[in-house]
């Protein structure tokens, strides 16, 4: 690789080097972006999130996530770990409800080595029975760490309460399946879900021809559409998790729109309109309607944010509050009142402009890191097989109108609600009381 003339391109011109997506006949999507960075990143995106788990193999994606460094047909577990470490690279797997993303990053010159490991891990895992059974303590450790975070507890329970199937599956292995997922489950899940039409190969800072070659040679192995996931059915429910924590976490959501629709864009704008976290460190969240509204209802420490999550066929929109247990009811009601105010048309054009600017800012800033960029390209490749440039997305954001936003708020206010709460539930209202 010629090191002379290497330079970092600014954000604006990064798209010019984007090799257009190649959609192979088998359905595999290959994309790469030459950003002339000395470090390369390659991701294999698979539509194999936990929504594709069936009732008899619930928790298999958790095991699969942990099994990324186990022995494969071409490389042993030791070789993978040592090989990746020797080049100073990183092999990681991220799983969300929709996708599993296998990423390797390393210096540009070492791409061949880590590429070999990546391909082995995604296409030729062996899932040896004893190695898989050794993952059980790691599963327990993962779950313990997740249980340590109340937010994860609440969000997972929220999904469990909101859906009847598919999206109700948790990212973590359920208790009854810890130790009961065997090698056969993993093999079957990979057979059914890791097919070419559900995969995308994305590279940042790699040679496109090389990537195409690898994709055609290795990732075309399993053709077919695999098992189609079930359509997610929203039901709306409630889960209350009592504990002795000194804070109460509560999430109230309703069904929103599937990702990729204009409605989903409206919900995103609404999220920022209402308030989605800090923009200034140690600031007072003056721009967040929710925070200002709740501050009038209680003087104790609290936090509130709009929650927005879109999946391929459904979505959740609502509020997430953290408050003192005694003030929980007031906080939740105050936050919901703010949303109602928006639904009733209490939004000014200035608010809307601010929200759009914040959303655009958040999106564009996420593209500034290589992880964010890779994820964006990959999820688009997987979901649509094409790439929307940042300018296009900014335009779409600008096209959201006031009515769209207030319709979205109305949909939340009138929709069947799901609620999940954790902490001292003494003053927490039930979902039918809010």
């Amino acid at each position: 690789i010629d090191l002379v003339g290497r330079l970092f391109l600014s954000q604006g011109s990064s798209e010019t080097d984007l090799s257009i997506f190649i959609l192979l006949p088998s359905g595999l999507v290959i994309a790469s972006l030459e950003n002339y960075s000395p470090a390369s990143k390659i991701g294999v995106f698979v539509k194999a999130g936990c929504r594709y788990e069936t009732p008899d193999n619930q928790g298999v994606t958790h095991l699969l996530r942990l099994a990324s460094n186990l022995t494969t047909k071409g490389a042993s577990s030791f070789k993978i770990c040592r090989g990746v470490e020797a080049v100073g690279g990183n092999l990681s797997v991220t799983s969300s409800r929709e996708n599993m993303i296998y990423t390797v990053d390393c210096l540009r010159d070492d791409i061949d080595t880590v590429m070999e490991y990546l391909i082995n891990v995604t296409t030729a895992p062996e899932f040896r029975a004893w190695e898989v059974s050794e993952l059980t303590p790691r599963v327990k450790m993962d779950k313990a760490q997740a249980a340590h975070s109340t937010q994860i507890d609440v969000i997972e329970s929220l999904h469990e309460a909101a859906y009847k199937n598919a999206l109700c599956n948790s990212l973590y292995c359920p208790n009854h399946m810890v130790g009961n997922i065997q090698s056969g489950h993993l093999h079957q899940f990979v057979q059914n879900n890791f097919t070419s039409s559900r995969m995308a190969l994305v590279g940042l800072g790699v040679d496109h021809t090389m990537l195409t070659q690898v994709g055609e040679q290795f990732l075309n192995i399993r053709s077919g559409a695999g098992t189609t996931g079930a359509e997610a059915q929203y039901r709306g429910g409630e889960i209350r998790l009592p504990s002795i924590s000194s804070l109460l976490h509560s999430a109230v959501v309703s069904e929103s729109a599937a990702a990729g629709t204009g409605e989903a864009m409206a919900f995103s704008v609404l999220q920022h309109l209402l308030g989605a976290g800090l923009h200034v460190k140690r600031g007072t969240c003056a721009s967040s309607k929710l925070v200002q509204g709740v501050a009038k209802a209680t003087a104790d420490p609290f936090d509130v944010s709009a929650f927005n999550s879109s999946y391929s066929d459904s979505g959740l929109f609502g509020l997430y509050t953290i408050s003192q247990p005694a003030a929980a009811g007031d906080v939740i009601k105050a936050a919901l009142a703010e949303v109602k105010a928006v639904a009733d048309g209490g939004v000014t054009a200035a608010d809307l402009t601010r929200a759009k600017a914040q959303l655009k800012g958040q999106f564009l800033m996420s593209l500034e890191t290589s992880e964010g960029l890779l994820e964006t390209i990959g999820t688009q490749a997987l979901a649509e097989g094409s790439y929307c440039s940042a300018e296009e997305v900014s335009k779409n954001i600008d096209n959201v109108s006031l009515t769209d936003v207030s319709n979205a708020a109305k949909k939340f206010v009138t929709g069947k609600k799901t609620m999940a709460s954790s902490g001292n539930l003494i003053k927490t209202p039930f979902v039918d009381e809010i």
Partner: protein
Amino acid sequence: MMSLAARSGAFSPYMQATAVAVSGPLKALVSGVVVKGEKMLLDPKKQFLCRESLNGQSPKTGPAVTVSINGCAGVRFAHTDVRVPDFSDYRRPDVLDPNKSSQESSESRKTFSYLVTGATTVVGVYAAKTVVTQFVSSMSASADVLALSQIEIKLSDIPEGKNMTFKWRGKPLFVRHRTEKEIATEAGVNLAELRDPQHDKDRVLNPSWVIVLGVCTHLGCVPIANAGDFGGYYCPCHGSHYDASGRIRKGPAPLNLEVPFYEFPDDDTVLVG
């Protein structure tokens, strides 16, 4: 049109739960987990003290979980992969309680340890010295050779005036029971006449017994007892005359007959050598 802005936040920094094998040098740590037996003890530091510390704690979108070989070190932080065995059975009772200061017992513990070490060192040095001397002394004369080095003679077997010859260390040994007359004669000899002046009492422990090596100091022949001009020994090879004390009187020999080391363990025996 893709509503990218609402994608499932796989990399939202808040919602990353990770479990890894090795920590990376540049990435942040998440709270560690300690495994004690089968229970997991988690870091309980979760005091939210003021409003500002709660800011930003609410999640904005659904989570994604990451596992990597070289990422945020949740596990390595607490070395949970390495199970440290419980050594309580082998520890001193003074220091078993983690809440008690170990300073009080430190004096006695140190004294005990140093004493034991010191004593072991002394014993060890002594043992080493013994072993080394045993090996080195194995190179000295063996027992059978040493057995030949001494001779025990029963004196009652030798009558007065008689000289008996014994083989000792490969050489003849003369044991002579002297008469009173011989003793008096030898004691009165003038030392100025002697080639090798030695008084008789310097050559014998008990005057009635003279014990000398029967090797002529001239050229090594064996002298004949009770012969010669001086009532002692006469060497036939070159004519050396010795007296009853074994001193040279006439002839070519330069020195008196050699007197070996001997002692009388009791009246009846003499131990030569």
